[in-house]
Structure formats: C-alpha cells, structure tokens
C-alpha cells in the first residue's frame, strides 16, 4: 500500500455553520495506480487532493504514506515529503511567469540543492522527453497552453517523485490538447511506475484511471 486515507474529515466554519468538505473519506492507493477522482463542483475533490500532503490540514482521520502516518507530522516534515516524493500539476499550469521553460523545470531541483550542471542535464532530458527541447529559453507567455502544461508535467517529474497529484490538468485545454496531455500522463504512469491521482470533471479523462473514485458532498459514493 502506497497511500491510504482513513475516515478523513475536513470541516470549514462559515458564518456559524459547519461545512463538511470531506466526510469520512477512506481509500487505498497502490504503487503505479492511476486514480481519477470525479464529482460535481464543491464535492470536495480538490480539497482531498490538497489535504493528502498537508496543504490543507485535516479535521480528523489518518493519512498513511509509505507505511507512515503523515497527517500528524510537522509542517517542516510535510514540506520535505512534498519536495522529495510529490509532483503537482494544476489546471492553470502554475508556472513562474518571469522564468524560462528550463528555469521553471529546474525549480524542484533547486529546492533540493542539486548542483547546477546536474540540474541543467536533467532538465534538458526531461524537456526532450516531453517534446519541448526547442522551447527551453522561452517564457511561459511565449508558448501555447498545451506546451505550458507539458512544462508543468516536466516540472512535476524532474525530481523523480513517487506520486503525482493533478488537479484538473486538462481543464484549460481544448479536447485535442487534453487527449495529448492525458496520453502523456498515461505514458509517465506506465513507463515510470509513478502513481497518479487526478481530479477531473471530464468523463473522458476519468476513463484513463485504473482506479476511479467519485465524490459527492464530501463522501465517496463510488469506488472501482
């Protein structure tokens, strides 16, 4: 078992009212799984994704990663786990606008203090892998949305994480580009055995999952 959630609860207080964003959610994910999480807006999909590695703290419940509880460890320890073991892909690409393609991709290595030459070597390899070796010195605004998402994917895998968390990675892309990105994620999942948990609205994207979760009003209503 790579990642396990047990009775995860996340409550928000709003104008004296308690809102259950996640209501006793439990799941198990194995290494190499491609998990898709679907559900209507406000069902708690993104909250679940952010809560897995401490970007949102739980109200109650346990999260176990690699055999260790991580819901009760310090911010510093969670930051260290995110740095080493997790890659994030967001709907809006989350690229730093004033950095070039290669500089954006190198950030996770910079945070790990990988030597400069090694950073450049690995960034070039990854950019070649995602088909952007001819866009290395471009700024995000100078390239297409599909290419920007591929940069985000390259950035999410450059530090060889165990798991990628993707929040609507095709949400800003047209159907053709969406398929291209989904195929790419499938390739990464198959070739590198990187576990992927992908939140999506799209039924097409959801079909890429080897394990599918459906959330509604903070509860898992379907798990296949």
């Amino acid at each position, binding site marked *: 078992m790579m990642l396990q959630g047990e009775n995860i609860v996340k409550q928000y207080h709003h104008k004296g009212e308690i809102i259950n964003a996640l209501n006793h959610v439990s799941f198990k994910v194995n290494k190499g799984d491609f998990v898709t999480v679907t559900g209507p807006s406000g069902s708690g999909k993104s909250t679940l994704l*952010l809560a897995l590695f401490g*970007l*949102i703290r739980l109200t109650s419940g346990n999260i176990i990663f690699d055999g260790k509880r991580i819901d009760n460890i310090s*911010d*510093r320890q969670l*930051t*260290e786990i*995110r*740095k*080493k073991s*997790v890659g*994030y892909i*967001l*709907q*809006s690409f*989350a690229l*730093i606008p*004033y*950095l070039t393609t290669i*500089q954006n991709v*190198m*950030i*996770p*290595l*910079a*945070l*790990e203090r990988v030597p*400069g030459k090694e*950073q450049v070597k690995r960034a070039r390899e990854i950019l070649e892998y995602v088909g952007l070796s001819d866009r290395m010195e471009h700024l995000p605004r100078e390239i297409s949305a599909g290419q920007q998402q591929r940069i985000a994917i390259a*950035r999410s895998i450059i530090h060889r994480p165990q798991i990628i968390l993707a929040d609507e990675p095709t949400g800003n892309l047209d159907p053709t580009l969406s398929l291209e990105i989904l195929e790419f994620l499938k390739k990464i999942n198959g070739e590198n055995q990187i576990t992927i948990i992908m939140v999506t609205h799209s039924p097409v994207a959801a079909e890429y999952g080897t394990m599918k979760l459906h959330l509604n009003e903070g509860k898992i209503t379907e798990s296949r």
Partner: protein
Amino acid sequence: MTILKLVFIELWKRKSQLITGLLAITLGIAVIIAIQSVSVVSELNVARNLDNLGANILVLPQGASIDDYYTSDIDAPTLPMDYVERILTSTIAGVDNMSPKLTRRIKVGNQSIVLTGILPKSEIASKPLWQSSGLLGAELKTACAPNQSANKSHGLEDDKLKRKAIDTLNSKDCLAGSQVAKRLHLSKQSKIDIMGKEFNVIKILPETGTVDDDRIFANLRDVQQLLGIENQVSAIEIMGCCNAISEGLLGKLRNILPDTRITTIGQIVSTQIETNLLMKKVTLVMLIIIFFVGGISIGNYIWANVNERKREIGILRMMGAKRSTIYKMFLLKALVLGVGGGILGYLLGTFAGVILGPYLAGIIVKPVYIYLLWSVLFSVTISLAGSLFPTYLAAKFDPHANLQED
C-alpha cells in the same frame, strides 16, 4: 538555478519595480550622505571659529584667582616652569596647545602697562587671530574639529614635538598690543625701554578686544630675568579639545599638577561643547528620520512585491519550499537592494554635497570614502529592517489559499 539566481532573475525581469525600489533607498541614503558630507565640513568650520575664542583652560598657582591672572599685580602668586615639562612629558590626549606666561603690571614712563613673557610660537599658536595676521607659522589644527589629529596617536615623540613650545622670539624683541601701542605712540621698529632694557617693537598686534590689547609681549626668559622671577610663570594657558574636556581632561591635568588651580574659561568651553552637541543632534535626528522613512518605503515596496507574488509563493511552498526559503528569497532581495541603494546613494549624495556645498553653505566639500562603507551598512540595515515584517507574513501565507487564486 539557486534561490539567489531566482532573486536576480526576478529583479532583472521586473526592471521598473527594481528601479522604484532602488530609488526609494538610494534617495534616502543620498540625503544622509549629502547632509553628512556638508555637515562634517561645517563642523570643521564651526570648530575653527570656536578655536578663535582662544585658550579654554587656565592652570593657575594654588590660591590664585582669575582676577590675579587679569590684574597681574606685583605680588600675584606664580608656579614653576617645570609644570610645562610635566604636561609635555605626559601622554594626556586633548591638549592641543599651551602657552606658559609670566605677567606683571609695570610702569613704562608714566604709563601703566602689562608686561607678559611668552614662549612665542605656542603663544601665537593659541591665538589664531594673531596667526591669521601672518605673524608666524602655519595654521593650527582646530581643537574641536571632528576626527582631528589631537586625539589620534601618531607616536609619543611626534605628540610631544607638536605640543612643545619653542622659543623663537629674540631677546630684545617685543610685540605690542594695539591699545598700548597707541598710548605709548609705538610703531613697528620703534624702540622701547622696559625696566632699563631696550626692546625693538617688531610688530603691533591687531586689535582683539581683549586684555591682550593692553599688553607688551616679550620673550619669557627676558621677562623672568627683568622681573627677577627665574623659572616661574603666572599661568599656563591651554587650548584643550572641548570633547576631551567633557571627557575629563581637567581631572587628568589635576592628577599631574596637584598643587595648582585648574579652571576652564566656562563660556568658551560651554559654547564649544553646546555647538558640537547641536551639530551632532541635528545629524542624529536626520539619521533617525531617514531610517524610519527609508525603512517604511522599503517595507512598503517589499509588501507590494509579496502581494504580487502570492501565487508564486504558493507554488513554491506546494513544491516543497520551506518557510526559510521564502525568507531567504525576500531578504536576499532586500540585501541586493540595500547594497545597490547604498552604493548609488553614496555616489549621488557625495556628488550632491560636492556640487551643492559651495552654493548652499559656502564650503568646499570633498568625497569622504569611508562613508561608502557606512552608507552600504546603513542601507542594508534599513532595507532588511523594512523587509522583515512583510517577509514574515509571506512565509506565513497559507499555500493552499494562494493556489486557489487559480
């Protein structure tokens, strides 16, 4: 890629913001440097003017009063010449010049005058009004000027030489005060008989408005001989650095001259000290104002930058950047701005001081190179102090809240 490189890239890619930030700190530092450059020269000028007031410490015989010193009665008490040597051989700092004197009221013809024996070079040196009349020697260093040499150690021998009184006024030569010259109808090269000895008047001294105008000055040794008071003086006039006086120069002199009365000429000393204090206070107030205004400006700039980069902070935190990395990012930026602003501020402030000094203050201002170091240190301190709180808030940002801006 390193965090420092990230800082430089961000600064370079957002040039207009870089210029705004640099401008805020550069102008602050430039104002300080310009004011400081002008005020140091002004302080020097003020100190010179204060020195023109003359000696500010009197060493008198035990039991003598200031009245004795001015009236110079025939039976006024004296003290041994050796005391001059005691001061010369001591290592007390702050004695910029001294003038041993023997003074007696005598009759010349039917006129009553005051005959004063002096060691001329030191006497003239302690009277800058005379010095400026071209009588003798080069201009003295001021006693109260900032960083002036009297407080520095150039080696014991040099210090002693600088303070040593040298007898250069020839025997049979004398100087006449302006009033006494009028009364006795003296002019340059006149002859005058004093107690049976003929003297040549080599100079009529310019009017000073003091008791010196009624005196005739001759070589101390001659006067001691004429009056029959060998190796004795009436008083030792000392020009002391006013800062040294406030730091206990009188006590130190009393230690080596226990059987004397040592007094300051209060008005002179208090004027010197008060003027120096005022100059220092004005500069300090300016420093405090610039520190706060500069700190708030930089703090405001960094806070705007933090707000603009909230999403970037969220992305970095999501990818595993520690809070300390966020601190590093913004404080390094503040450091770069501080160093840049300090150097530019020094150059601009010095340039302004050099150009504006002669027009506004009528003084010639020269670059003070050590201020480069101080301006960089000050600028970095302002910049870091102003950036600390916005950076603290940036590091505390909830990454999830910032990512939701997507």
